[in-house]
């Protein structure tokens, strides 16, 4: 009884605390210091709470609570299994680091009284997406996240932000509309939107209906996750936002889409052999993303295309539908969230000290700011999957699973993509950190004093912390991979999940 009461509290806190803090932050509209204290305090508490949840799930298995005490198929259930708990921990750590970075960066939260409330609401939305056990509630979580992200992406209101913000809003409204239509179809076919209940009832539908629902939801989440051919909006809209916003979107929002794909494809439409359509999508996403990245000449745009490319690996692991493959995917997402964010934060440090991220304009950063160069290098090598960094472990897991399933073609593609990723990271390295700046009008070129190049300590500190997290992932890769394997077993055999929710 006490255990259950404690669990009810632990499970709702990641959603309630950020919302509560958002309410306080909006009341303290013009008191920036107060807003900062509330926001940072709430997120630290959420990080601690998610860590407790992870421990509880590790010890006692899947946890759930029925909100408002309405029983399962009728009410809204919050469920945390190993997969959700892992995602929750890493995303909350990332959200906290980016918040501290944003507080450090001049002009991000300072001139924008809405930044903290909106950022906290987005955090609550992300946490709800990871913990909800109800398809319609997942839609609500998406809307909370998206409504906040619309504000964040256009924060500052520069011309190109508004233009690409429009693309972002329209594409997401379209996806949301499709999502509601999809939920209506699911409800029409089964009479329920509780995911555990759906897992039982969808299995009884004719296979044609199952395929239609499965593909429809795949398209909806595919737009959010930016998989081929639905990725075009991402490299266009992400780079225009302020750097902390771009960083947190890059690290988290597409991963929420991937999470939903994995959750629905494994729980609602289970398979026991590799899914050709997912593997083909994965291959094309990887290849097109990395080719797009190679064609770019700006750090932010290169990295934005890499978001797309890396999504391909996650879909590849899922598409294999084996414990090894899905475990690889879980680990890969776990590593990808902080790495991707750290890369953008390091890019932000470059932009902050030079005023540009164009490869042709910036140069010679390694002599001027060796710390930034080092941070970028560590994150970039991890992204490219060089041993002993965390990306290597994730990719190795996925590729081994691919060999195990006999899918040699897709494994070949992923290896080539890995090389090309390394190539484009080297391109950034050569352009930005080595060489000399070609544009003498930049601050960097004309700067003689050290203070012009220096960046606020909070910005650097947050980046160092996040790169530290990625190194810790590499260090504890064994333990984390074990947890990922347990997460994958839970995903592929959801009986414990269903049992826990429906009782």
């Amino acid at each position: 009884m006490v255990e259950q009461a404690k669990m009810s509290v632990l499970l709702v806190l990641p959603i309630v605390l950020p919302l509560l803090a958002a309410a306080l932050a909006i009341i303290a509209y013009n008191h920036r210091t107060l807003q900062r204290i509330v926001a940072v305090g709430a997120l630290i508490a959420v990080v601690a709470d998610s860590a407790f949840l992870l421990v509880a799930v590790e010890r006692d298995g899947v946890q759930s609570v029925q909100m408002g005490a309405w029983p399962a198929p009728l009410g809204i259930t919050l469920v945390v299994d190993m997969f959700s708990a892992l995602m929750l921990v890493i995303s909350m750590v990332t959200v906290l680091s980016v918040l501290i970075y944003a507080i450090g960066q001049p002009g991000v939260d300072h001139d924008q009284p809405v930044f903290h409330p909106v950022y906290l609401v987005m955090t609550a939305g992300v946490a709800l997406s990871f913990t909800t056990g109800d398809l319609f509630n997942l839609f609500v979580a998406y809307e909370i996240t998206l409504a906040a992200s619309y504000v964040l992406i256009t924060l500052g209101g520069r011309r190109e932000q508004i233009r690409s913000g429009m693309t972002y809003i329209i594409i997401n409204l379209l996806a949301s509309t499709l999502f509601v239509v999809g939920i209506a179809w699911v409800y029409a076919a089964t009479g329920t939107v509780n995911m555990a209940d759906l897992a039982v009832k969808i299995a009884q539908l004719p296979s044609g209906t199952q395929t239609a629902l499965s593909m429809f939801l795949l398209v909806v989440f595919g737009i959010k996750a930016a998989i081929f051919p639905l990725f075009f909006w991402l490299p266009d809209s992400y780079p225009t936002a302020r750097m902390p916003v771009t960083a947190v979107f890059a690290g988290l929002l597409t991963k929420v889409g991937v999470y939903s794909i994995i959750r629905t494809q494994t729980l609602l439409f289970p398979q026991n052999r590799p899914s050709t359509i997912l593997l083909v999508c994965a291959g094309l996403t990887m290849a097109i993303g990395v080719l797009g990245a190679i064609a770019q000449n700006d750090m932010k745009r290169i990295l934005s295309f890499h978001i797309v490319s890396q999504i391909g690996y996650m879909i590849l692991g899922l598409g294999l539908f084996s414990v090894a493959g899905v475990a690889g995917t879980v680990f890969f997402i776990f590593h990808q969230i902080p790495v991707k964010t750290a890369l953008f934060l390091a890019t932000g440090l470059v932009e902050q000290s030079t005023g540009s991220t164009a490869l042709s304009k910036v140069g010679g950063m390694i002599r001027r700011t060796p710390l930034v160069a080092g941070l970028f290098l560590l994150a970039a090598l991890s992204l490219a999957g060089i041993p002993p960094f965390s990306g290597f472990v994730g990719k190795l897991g996925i590729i081994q699973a691919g060999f195990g399933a006999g899918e040699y073609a897709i494994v070949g593609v992923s290896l080539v993509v890995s090389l090309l990723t390394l190539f484009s990271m080297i391109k950034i390295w050569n352009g930005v950190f080595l060489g000399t700046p070609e544009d003498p009008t930049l601050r960097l070129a004309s700067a003689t004093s050290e203070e012009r190049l220096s960046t606020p300590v909070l910005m650097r500190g947050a980046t160092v912390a996040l790169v530290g997290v990625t190194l810790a992932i590499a260090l504890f890769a064994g333990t984390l991979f074990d947890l990922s394997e347990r997460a994958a077993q839970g995903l592929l055999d959801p009986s414990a999940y269903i049992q826990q929710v429906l009782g």
Partner: protein
Amino acid sequence: MTPRRSVILDLCVQAEFHTLLLLSLYLLFAGHNQPGGGFAGGLVASCAFGLRYVAGGSSALSRSISIPATTFLGVGMLFAILTGCVSLLTGHEFLESAIFSADLMVLGTVKTSSVLFFDIGVYLVVLGMALLLLEQLGGADGTDPDEVQP
């Protein structure tokens, strides 16, 4: 040319303003078992302030309400979330509702539920949102193109 204030509209709005606010409160309290609720009530209250804005521009709006719109938003959110937390603190599930009844002499026995407090939060959020819209889109930077001279 400075637009002139319409006397008819002005008087109608003055007559309607408080009636609308009262109606919004009725909807708020009736909401649990009858048509209405926090959202509908909040919209009606927003209409009342919207009419004030239409009749007299943003200066009339700011004269009729001195609390910042963001405070409405924040307090509303606090109300709604804390309602959920109260049940959590008393050992029930998040957002679990409870029913109270009280004997209010002349009014007889009145039954209400904790959902009412959640609804009050929704009411305030909707109202705050509408006020914020009027404030932001209606020229809060001091250059109100529609400012109407009395």
